């Protein structure tokens, strides 16, 4: 096997920022090469240079692919030679079928007329290869994100891919789908397809990668060979953050008080299909100063449960009882929930947490305008002070509080959302995937903030799909599966195995 790709001395400058600084990056044919680094380290930029999204001439340095110097002008040029990139945000058209999506821009056609039987015939073959058991006629909007990811890979195969670039492919997938995807990548490797894998999830990287290149601040720090170098997660993290992370989770001495919030016999039906039960007889309790995790696979109903508590923002025919500080309460609207000290940080900060076109200041104060206004008139000076306070307290890296939320990095966006909900002064704070898609350093900062909130006596409900973080920061963990609570584990009892065991057992019971 030789070298399939070599990127030499790549430098890419954006106005005011050097995104890549003299990066050298070499990929051997037939290997799985992981590219890791914090957000903003330059991973995506490097891949965009490679795939021609940043055309030749907008960067300096050379790309040598299969022995030839390449000057890609756009993504079509790179696809022509077999380089295909699959972005974190999937680029499928929801209202087209799987088959149509797979051959989009690469149609099976003659003189401009599409040959549909050939399209679907080839689609079926490729779907078999990625082990996706769906008809090629199914609309993409009707299949799960995990399956959509497989469609993307099939689409790449249709383009005769030789070098496949996957940008955070498992960010939105649950454990099962992730494993499935990783197995598929290993299988493609056997067929001789080279793969560059960008990922934040080090356990996955460790599982499949042959080589790991670490980027930091736009520079390639080191390249490690599995089996040659001594590699473990700590070593990689050290390379990524430039310092030794003794602990990925900040230490905390929990000071747990009496029960502050309780949900009893909670049942929720689907908002549209009103005879489908989504949440089934859920009972949970949270104490003052306690961080309670809700673990479970994607689709277990955690987000639906949280939103249905939060002023019935999800679901229909909701029944059950909420007890706060010993008194039964009822929230019919989001406003009532917030006013009664319950806040919910959404799973998806971009589409539901932030107003991206507005500035940091307005985003932070939005749910709590009452606190900074008199008789409906907003006190702009007070608003600025509040925003400044949170910007410095949570260390939101930005030019000023007037910076648009959309121009911030993922970690800083999440800090804005956190500020927003902390300023609403909740007693109960529900956090739904608060660290999704943000880098190790920012995660640590966010854990620290969460710990502080708990120490102040707030009750935290922490929903996450990442087992290590649930295990790392929660005092007690509920396991949810198929809309039910299927286990409750103390910090001592909890482990990846015990959580998975709860899920597996409940699956067996249902069958």
């Amino acid at each position: 096997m030789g070298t399939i790709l070599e990127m030499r001395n790549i430098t890419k400058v954006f106005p005011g920022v050097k995104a890549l600084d003299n990066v050298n990056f070499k990929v051997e044919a037939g290997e799985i090469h992981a590219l890791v680094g914090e957000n903003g380290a330059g991973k995506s930029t490097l891949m965009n240079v490679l795939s021609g999204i940043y055309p030749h001439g907008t960067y300096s340095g050379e790309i040598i692919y299969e022995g030839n110097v390449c000057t890609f002008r756009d993504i079509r040029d790179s696809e022509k030679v077999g380089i295909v990139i699959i972005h974190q945000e999937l680029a499928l058209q929801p209202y087209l079928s799987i088959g149509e999506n797979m051959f989009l821009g690469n149609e099976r056609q003659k003189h401009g007329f599409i040959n549909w039987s050939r399209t679907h015939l080839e689609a079926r073959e490729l779907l078999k290869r990625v082990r996706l058991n769906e008809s090629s006629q199914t609309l993409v909007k009707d299949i799960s994100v995990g399956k959509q990811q497989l469609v993307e890979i099939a689409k790449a195969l249709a383009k005769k891919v030789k070098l496949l670039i996957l940008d955070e492919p498992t960010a939105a997938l649950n454990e099962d789908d992730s494993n499935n995807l990783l197995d598929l990548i290993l299988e493609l490797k056997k067929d001789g397809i080279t793969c560059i894998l960008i990922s934040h999830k080090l356990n996955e990287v460790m599982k499949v990668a042959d080589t790991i290149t670490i980027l930091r601040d736009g520079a390639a720090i080191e390249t490690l060979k599995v089996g040659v170098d001594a590699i473990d997660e700590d070593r990689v993290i050290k390379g990524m953050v430039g310092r030794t992370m003794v602990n990925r989770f900040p230490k905390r001495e929990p000071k747990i008080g009496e029960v502050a919030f309780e949900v009893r016999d909670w049942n929720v039906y689907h908002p549209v299909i009103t005879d489908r039960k989504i949440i089934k007889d859920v009972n949970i309790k949270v104490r003052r100063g306690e961080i309670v995790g809700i673990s479970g696979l994607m689709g277990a109903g955690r987000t639906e449960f949280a939103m249905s508590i939060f002023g019935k923002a999800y679901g229909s025919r909701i029944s059950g009882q909420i007890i706060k500080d010993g008194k039964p309460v009822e929230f019919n609207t989001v406003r009532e929930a917030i006013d009664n000290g319950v806040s919910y940080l959404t799973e998806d900060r971009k589409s539901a947490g932030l107003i991206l076109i507005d500035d940091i200041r307005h985003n932070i104060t939005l749910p709590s305008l009452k606190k900074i206004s008199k008789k409906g008139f907003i006190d702009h000076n007070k608003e600025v002070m509040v925003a400044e306070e949170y910007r410095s307290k949570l260390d939101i890296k930005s030019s000023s509080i007037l910076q648009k939320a959309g121009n911030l990095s993922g970690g800083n966006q999440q800090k804005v959302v956190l500020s927003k909900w902390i300023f609403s002064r909740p007693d109960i704070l529900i956090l739904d995937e608060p660290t999704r898609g943000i880098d190790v350093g920012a995660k640590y900062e966010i854990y620290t903030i969460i710990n502080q909130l708990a120490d102040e006596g707030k009750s935290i409900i922490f929903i996450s799909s990442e087992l290590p973080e649930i295990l790392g920061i929660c005092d007690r963990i509920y396991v949810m599966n198929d809309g039910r609570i299927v286990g409750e584990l103390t910090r001592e009892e909890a482990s990846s195995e015990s959580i998975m065991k709860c899920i597996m057992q409940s699956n067996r019971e249902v069958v």
Partner: protein
Amino acid sequence: MENIGKTIKNNIRQYAMLIALVVIMIFFQIGTGGILLYPMNVTNLVLQNSYVLILAIGMTLCILTGGNIDLSVGSVVAFIGAVSGTLMINMKMPMFPALLITLGIGLLIGLWQGFWIAYIRIPAFIVTLAGMLLFRGLTNTILQGLTLAPYPPEYQAISGGFIPDFLNFFGASFNVTTIVLGIVLSVLYVIMAIRKRKERDKYNFENTPTLFFIAQVIIIVAGIMLLSYWLAAYKGIPIIFVIIGTLVVIYTVFTQKTVPGRYIYAMGGNEKAAQLSGINTNKVLFFTYVNMSVLAAVAGISFSSRINSASPVAGQSFELDAIAACFIGGASAYGGVGTVIGAIIGALVMGVLNNGMSIMGVGIDLQMTIKGLVLLIAVAFDVISKRKSRG
């Protein structure tokens, strides 16, 4: 020096449309041989465009909620004219009850359309397209295809009358009240500007450089005084001018300073995030469309008063003028961005173009072509400059 350059650069986009308006005015001032800024013509310009100015205020709020527009306002203007004409000309009803009834009907129209848009969630485009046909049809039904005229003089005064010159004790040849009001407004502005600046100092917020601040105050005071001079040299302050001025102040304060105003921006910026922040976006949308129809009723009164008749063809394509004014004034077609002042400037740009080209004898065909291009260029300028600033 670098600092001042930066301040100017930061503020220039904000004032881009205002600068464009001034440039267009200078162009026509020269092109018309000085007629454009004749005191009489300045007064006329405001009177001619009063209905667009009123509609543009309401349309701004609609667009802010998420790029929604209201296509029915032209027909509502005609319908309101028909109602007020029937009440006052045919039934000889006195003006004040008639005004209350017409405004009440505007409110009802708003409740009707707002219900379908906000609570049934039929796209605003469709509901108001239906309203455009519906109210045009009802106008024709009421008027039986005829034009009603003339209105009693007190009704005509809404658009044609002027504030009496009650301060002119010594028989001056110009309108003294107007000048005095101009001075009062200027002083008020200066006091407010200084107070705001001091407050910012108190909170240790960054202020614009003093020189820049003084220049800004001088330009605005000069603007106010120039306008009052123009008005004073003709017949003084038109009543409709006071109405529009009041509306502009109320809605600017509403959108910039109040909680519900902020909710409108939040809804347009990201409706889901707004909902999950405790905002009842249905209510926001409902209010916006009720408000639009009430303002359309005000525009209907002002327009019928100005043409002194209730006509079945009144108000045609007014909705398009108002929408164009908002977009020229910097509103985003996706919602969440835009200001009332911007829309007013946009409406004035269109107004000056209309007026200037008419004086220069440009044919109506060419006028339309030019206005179309101006709309496109203004929005393109906005889109491109935003893309650049993002880098």
